[in-house]
């Protein structure tokens, strides 16, 4: 079992910096012109995993960005993944 103080000594400053970077990213998006975007919607939904107070936050966050369906799509029209599922109508 890892020592909590040791884990914080090793990773607190790094995690703090990343958290502030996320806050700055959200401020940046808010300042920018434009409409809704499914990627940012997924991003905000994923943030709820941080507040769940339950284990496997990382897994839950990954699932929040994931395609939840189980059947193969008809055809691949692109090679790239964008990081968030656009929804069945746009996949």
């Amino acid at each position, binding site marked *: 079992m*890892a020592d909590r103080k*040791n884990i914080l000594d*090793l*990773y607190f400053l790094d995690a703090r910096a990343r958290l502030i970077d996320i806050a700055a990213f959200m401020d940046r998006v808010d300042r920018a012109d434009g409409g809704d975007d499914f990627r940012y919607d997924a991003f905000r939904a994923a943030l709820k995993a941080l507040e769940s107070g339950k284990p*496997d936050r*990382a*897994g839950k966050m*990954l*699932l929040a*960005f*994931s*395609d*939840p*369906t*189980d059947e*193969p*799509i*008809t*055809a*691949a*029209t*692109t*090679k*790239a*993944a*964008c*990081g*968030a*599922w656009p929804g069945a109508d746009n996949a």
Partner: protein
Amino acid sequence: MRYIEPHGHMVSRTTDDYQAMAMAGCQAVSEPAFWAGFDRSSVQGFYDYFCQLTQHEPRRAAMFGLPHYTWLCINPKESEDLKLADEVLAIIPEFMGSPNVLGIGEIGLNKNSRNEMLVLEKHIDLAASNDQLILVHTPHLEDKRKGTRLILDALKSDSRIRPERCIIDHVEEHTVGMVLDDGFWAGMTLYPETKCTSNRAIDILELYGNERIWMNSACDWGISVPLAVPRAAQEMKRRGSDPGQIDKVIYQNPIEFMSQSPRFTAPEGL
């Protein structure tokens, strides 16, 4: 420190990378066939690529004292074209007898399409028919969960496939459990943005143990770090991991899996 790089696309790396890896303790490299960053225009492009993987690249690695192993396939990114896929599948047996070929890979899915599934099943059949190990690429980002599930189901539906002879690569927190629970090996790819960081990979080891799992850099032509594995090992050490456990994950486990191929020779001193 000693380690194996079980997934590195060395054709797209410089000789400086080979040198750095050798100096960091790398004992062998394993190179799955992959997408070149652009679509090849014909099967001839694959023929040349397979020659590169089985003839040229082993010589380049040997300059730095590194045994070089490889895996053959058409990558799922090029599997939408069924005619091309069939042509490539037809030439793979010609290269299977090469002394550095460990199996079929990295096969799998990219966007989880029907054609990708068809080509995946043909690769699985090719591997099973020729008693080859299998190295699987799982999709990126939002497509990973679904693709991993589809791939596992496809492998399990073929009674000739033994899970312990298949490595399912690029697992993350939401897929590692299903892979290990089904008896397959799991690979964690240490990519800066799109896959696992070192810290998350070490978390996964703490949660799931160090059996049937390895770490790799999957270094290629994109943003990637050829020394990701020894850097992760250093982070394991910083976190207090036992040296024997580190050695197991980065050296002994890749040897255990790849030794299932008679073509793999374990480095001396194991």
